[in-house]
């Protein structure tokens, strides 16, 4: 029973790896992407995972930064979730590559004007920092349980010494990692925001909105893992801390809606040209997906703002799943308004905008050499390949959670500053 998450995680890794090998042989032609919709489900999931990873560490760091005692029991989970997610995000970029065998070129000839190179640098740094954060927080557990985690040196020290080292270094790593957590998502947003040919991306608001969504989705995943790790019997004791995480996620979603509202007002007010085309795409071709994103994130926010929603563990779990689903759709909605149609248009003699057809690159699949719009839906292979990074994420979480106690004792009411 206890091993079920690990078994599911490893099974996902096996299925995902098989699908990836199939893709390496057949090329990205086994996916539904085309020259028009050139980044699909993989990049959507990549941005989603980077966000969840950033959010995890932001929660973990705020324990030390704001001295929030009631979140202290969840520090380990938040750091571990950040580590597992950023590891999975790194894998997600690799499965998206058309020529992964050339990846070493990125190390030999990095082009530092590319935001993708900046992202690889900060993601690698974040991977190291989140690992260290987990490492130092696990030291006291390792000492007590005798189960080692790359730390044979602790045998010579006393428990009190180890506790002091763990506390001191967890704090230092948390404070160093916080700006890096903000940075990974800022730089990931810059991959898109630097592109002046795409009005939906080319805004300074994008990085800020990305971080808001990161805190919301990162908090939601920490909640889910915490609920699973605590176990039904002990939910009651931890409700105060869990409710605080839910409230943080709700506030982050509110900030996100602020950005959404400002963006929509600007588009509607400007009118004409690109703004009108974008607004038309948000309400027309991408309307269902956009509506779904807004409904899901709004529902999660509303639930997490109510007292009832944050006092029942089942509702906390429901809200978290809704928030994560909404965030994933939000990430895909980054791509749809820009890639669903051609990026080049001309004004006709009668004054209407006409989309210039692009080569699909997928003549054999679509039967069309040219197209000005492209309806993309990820296919079964893409879903299977995505199981590889998500399987790694789940396996890492399960492996660590199986060996060590993941949730600390709840803080007593007296020493909580947020009462």
């Amino acid at each position, binding site marked *: 029973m206890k091993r079920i998450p690990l078994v599911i995680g490893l099974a996902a890794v096996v299925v995902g790896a098989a699908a990836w090998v199939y893709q390496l042989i*057949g*090329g*990205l*032609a086994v*996916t539904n*992407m*085309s*020259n*028009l919709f*050139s*980044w699909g489900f993989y990049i959507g999931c990549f941005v989603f995972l980077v966000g969840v990873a950033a959010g995890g560490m932001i929660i973990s760091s705020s324990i030390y930064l704001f001295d929030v005692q009631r979140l202290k029991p969840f520090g380990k989970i938040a750091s571990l979730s950040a580590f597992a997610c950023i590891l999975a995000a790194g894998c997600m*970029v690799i499965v*998206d*590559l*058309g*020529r*992964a065998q*050339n*990846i070493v*070129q*990125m190390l030999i*000839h*990095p*082009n530092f*004007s*590319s*935001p*993708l*190179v900046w992202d*690889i640098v900060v993601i690698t740094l974040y991977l190291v920092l989140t690992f260290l954060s987990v490492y130092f927080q696990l030291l006291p557990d390792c000492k007590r349980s005798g189960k080692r985690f790359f730390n044979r040196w602790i045998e010579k020290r006393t428990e009190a010494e180890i506790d002091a080292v763990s506390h001191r270094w967890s704090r230092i790593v948390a404070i160093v990692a916080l700006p890096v957590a903000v940075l990974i998502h800022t730089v990931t947003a810059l*991959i898109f925001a*630097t*592109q*002046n*040919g*795409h009005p939906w991306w080319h805004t300074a608001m994008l990085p800020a909105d990305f971080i808001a969504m990161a805190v919301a989705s990162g908090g939601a995943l920490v909640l889910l893992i915490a609920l699973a790790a605590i176990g039904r019997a002990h939910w009651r004791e931890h409700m105060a801390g869990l409710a605080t995480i839910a409230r943080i996620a709700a506030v982050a979603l509110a900030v996100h809606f602020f950005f959404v509202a400002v963006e929509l007002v600007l588009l509607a007010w400007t009118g004409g040209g690109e703004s009108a085309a974008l607004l038309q795409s948000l309400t027309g071709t991408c309307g269902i997906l956009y509506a779904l994103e807004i409904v899901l994130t709004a529902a999660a926010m509303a639930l997490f703002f109510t007292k009832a929603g944050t006092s029942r563990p089942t509702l906390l779990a429901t809200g978290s799943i809704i928030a994560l689903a909404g965030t994933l759709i939000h990430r895909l909605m980054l791509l749809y308004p*820009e*890639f669903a149609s*051609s*990026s*080049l248009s*001309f004004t*006709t*003699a*009668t004054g*209407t905008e*006409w989309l*210039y*057809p*692009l*080569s*699909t*690159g*997928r*003549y*054999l699949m*679509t039967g069309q*050499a*040219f197209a000005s719009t492209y309806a993309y839906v990820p296919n079964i292979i893409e879903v299977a390949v995505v199981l590889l990074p998500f399987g790694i994420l789940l396996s890492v979480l399960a492996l660590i959670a199986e060996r060590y106690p993941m949730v600390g004792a709840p803080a007593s009411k007296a020493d909580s500053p947020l009462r």
Partner: protein
Amino acid sequence: MKLGMAIDLDRCIGCRTCMVVCKNHNAQPEGIWWNRVFTIGSDEHQVATGTRGAGYEMAFMPVSCQHCENASCVKVCPTGASYTADDGTVLVDYERCIGCRYCLAACPYGVRQFNWEDPAKTKGVDEDRYCYGYPLDSLDKGRLVYTRDRPQGVAEKCTFCHQYRVEGEKPACVRGCPANARIFGDLDDPTSDVSRYLDGRPTSRLREELGNDPKVLYVQAGARQKPQLVYGEGM
């Protein structure tokens, strides 16, 4: 040196010869077209748009790589596989491309193409059969910028026919255009064909507002005012 091209929209007859010669000379696989010509506003090429009252129009628009001075694709490429050569052309090093497709997302003109599968397979060729396209590899300072058999999973686009330029020839589309609508040469040299052709002619560039500074200049089509068409009764 700044190689560029003028396309005279008044001369273009929309015959798509440049598309076909480009595809053949550069061995482009199925679904990949470095060079495209369409009729603006029309679902069918070579079909006029408009209404009886407002009059009809049939404007042809050839689009291929704009070889931007401030090229988005070069700036975003994580490995420097896309780069600007000394002569100002934007090229792709097939041996360095990792297939991340950032350039496809970044290009405002949609001219970047991707080899979603093994090109040899889509062209249906093997060792025994004829394969179209210039057969020899072409290198720029040791970097593979043209090869007939492209690797699977790399990005590609117009090179202004690198394999011909190194032999002193003009790009295939320039040589193939029956209306001489394309004029190619060094934009920095005032005595070059292209500079002399552009002198005094009104030009425009695609999506000028983005600041990409393209080196393909469109000589504007002349009078938009078309003669009034008169229809007889019953038409």
